[in-house]
């Protein structure tokens, strides 16, 4: 029988050994907790690169902010992003790689409806709850694509506040144009339907594809129809081309509104005074009193040395919503995350993230901006406006 002294010594040695091992193991265990990897693609090159660059910056800032606050589920976040070259086909291949080879924990959607349309069935196939910050085309969010959750206002809401406002101020006729692309066509058809509902006369309407070297005769046809309102669902090059052509043909409607293009700095640089009083839309603005918005603006400027715009806000808000779901479910289980996002509303910098059973956004809205003396000002809804809507469009 061992002596008591010997037993105590063994116990003491064992305790010391265990505690030493514990001290050695604890940091290893903490270091061993792998980061949560969020995968996705962005259009680093190709025609969508301009806005893609803003969206990914918003995502990167959100990841950095989340990591500063300790990450999710006590784990740091890591981003794994590939360049989809503005191509849906390339994005499909890359998302498959992210899911099957890289085995990322979570996904974030690409920029643009054009690219998201391509990956949506793949997302559903692998049942990954994916917030799509850059896809405003509502036709994506249908049964069969329900694992895709819209992280931006639907394009059918783009410029939707203009016609009622214009009608209230006496406008009766409208010209409508739309680029043949996923989200712009959805916007265009929604505006056509809205004009008819409001009883406004559509005096000219057309869709078009790019590139068009000259909008001169389209502008001439618009001038010939003499509408009060010209609403065009555009990207940047066509927004510039149309605005120039209207001016060159000698026509200035009372209201000139275009999507996407006027929000971008190159638009103002390209057009100078022609851009004055052009109206556009946004799902986010600097004066929104949404949680974290001021910190987002300050953080974005500090990190990227430029002002944020709404594509950056959609990227940031998507990560906010995803983080809320991960923390809310305490898991990375895709089904739980999706169910949580369907059942809950998440306050984000661009408003309330809320979707229906097919993932279509119900919470996000679109406001109106107007370029006034070279500066974008929020003009509608009036309750949130920082300036009055100036009429007519002068192009000078």
């Amino acid at each position, binding site marked *: 029988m061992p002596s008591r002294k010997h037993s105590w010594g063994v116990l003491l040695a064992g305790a010391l050994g265990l505690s030493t091992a514990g001290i050695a193991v604890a940091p290893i265990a903490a270091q061993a907790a792998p980061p949560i990897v969020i995968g996705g693609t962005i259009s680093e090159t190709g025609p969508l690169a301009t806005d893609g660059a803003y969206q990914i910056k918003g995502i990167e800032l959100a990841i950095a902010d989340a990591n500063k606050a300790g990450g999710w589920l006590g784990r740091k976040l890591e981003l794994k992003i590939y360049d989809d070259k503005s191509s849906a086909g390339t994005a499909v291949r890359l998302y498959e790689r992210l899911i099957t080879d890289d085995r990322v924990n979570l996904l974030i959607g690409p920029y643009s409806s054009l690219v998201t349309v391509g990956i949506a069935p793949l997302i559903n196939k692998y049942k990954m709850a994916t917030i799509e910050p850059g896809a405003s085309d509502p036709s994506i969010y249908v049964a069969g694509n329900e694992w895709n959750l819209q992280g931006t206002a639907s394009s059918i809401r783009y410029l939707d506040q203009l016609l009622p406002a214009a009608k209230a101020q006496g406008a009766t006729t409208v010209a409508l144009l739309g680029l043949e692309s996923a989200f712009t066509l959805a916007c265009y058809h929604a505006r056509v339907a809205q004009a008819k509902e409001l009883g406004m006369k559509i005096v000219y309407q057309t869709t078009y594809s790019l590139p068009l*070297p000259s909008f001169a005769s389209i502008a001439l046809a618009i001038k010939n129809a003499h509408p009060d309102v010209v609403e065009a669902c555009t990207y940047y090059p066509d927004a510039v081309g149309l605005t120039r052509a209207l001016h060159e043909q000698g026509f200035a409607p009372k209201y000139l509104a275009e999507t996407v293009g006027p929000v971008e700095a190159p638009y103002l640089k390209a057009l100078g005074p022609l851009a004055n009083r052009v109206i556009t839309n946004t799902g986010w603005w600097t004066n929104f009193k949404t949680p974290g918005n001021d910190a987002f603006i300050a953080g974005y400027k500090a990190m990227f040395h430029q002002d944020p715009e709404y594509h950056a806000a959609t990227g940031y808000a998507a990560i906010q919503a995803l983080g809320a779901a991960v923390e809310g479910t305490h898991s990375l289980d895709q089904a739980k995350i999706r169910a949580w996002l369907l059942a809950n509303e998440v306050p984000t910098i661009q408003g309330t993230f809320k979707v229906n059973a097919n993932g279509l956004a119900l919470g996000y809205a679109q406001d109106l901006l107007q370029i006034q003396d070279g500066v974008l000002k929020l003009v509608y809804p009036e309750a949130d406006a920082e300036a009055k809507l100036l009429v007519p469009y002068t192009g000078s």
Partner: protein
Amino acid sequence: MLLLQILVNGVLVGGLYVLIAQSLNLIFGVMGVVNLAHGSFIVLAGLFTYWFTSATGLNPLLVLPLAFVVLGLIGAGLQPLLVEPLMKFGRKAELLSLMVTFGLSYVLLELALQLWGSDFVSVPYLQSSWSLGGLEFSKAFAVSGAFAAAVSAALYFWLNYTDSGKCLLAASQSSTGAICCGIDVRRVRLIAFGLGVGLAAAAGVLVIIVMPLAPQTSDDLTLLAFVIIALGGLGNYGGVAIAAILLGIAQSLSAFFLGGNAEYVLPYVLLILVMVARPERFRPA
């Protein structure tokens, strides 16, 4: 008056099309080289013009002679390396040149992306119109068209009234016959390629004044040039000039009466019709 304005719009656009097409017509007509990098040279010059005007604030038209000379010399430097070695393959040279210039177009595209990024950019120059007799003449298109016309006229004069130009025409009609007449066809091909690239660069300086450009628009410009050449006749410089103007007018009419999609698709519909009805237009004149 409305119809006159539509015609004016079309002629102004067609004026720019002339230069876009003639520069490729020179290379294709003389050498039988399918230069798929044509649009890339146009875009490179356009983007350089944007950078130049943004950096200096100077008139973008000042870039035109510089772009013509610099890119023309680059073209003359590339021709003996990439294109001339293919000439010994005879009739196969056309297909081989297609593949080589296809590769070159992507190299140039990547160069443009690295230098200037993928954003669409535009030069804010002459953004208004002259009013004359109730008609509006876009200043940007009018000035671009005038330059294009001057360059095209100079090209026509050189080809038809100078010894060196006649040598080039001779080589385009029959390289064997040209050799027999003592013409150095290798030198002629080098000049044609360099000149064609220089003219494409000149077109690029003018294009960015009238429409936003980005590296990825190069393919569309190459295709447009081929369409106009097909309509006007390969190697037929007068025919291509007329075809360019007529295409501009046709697009203007279709845009006004049928809408934007008709304007966009018209060149390709015409190309199919011409290729089916008159395929000989794609053989050298």
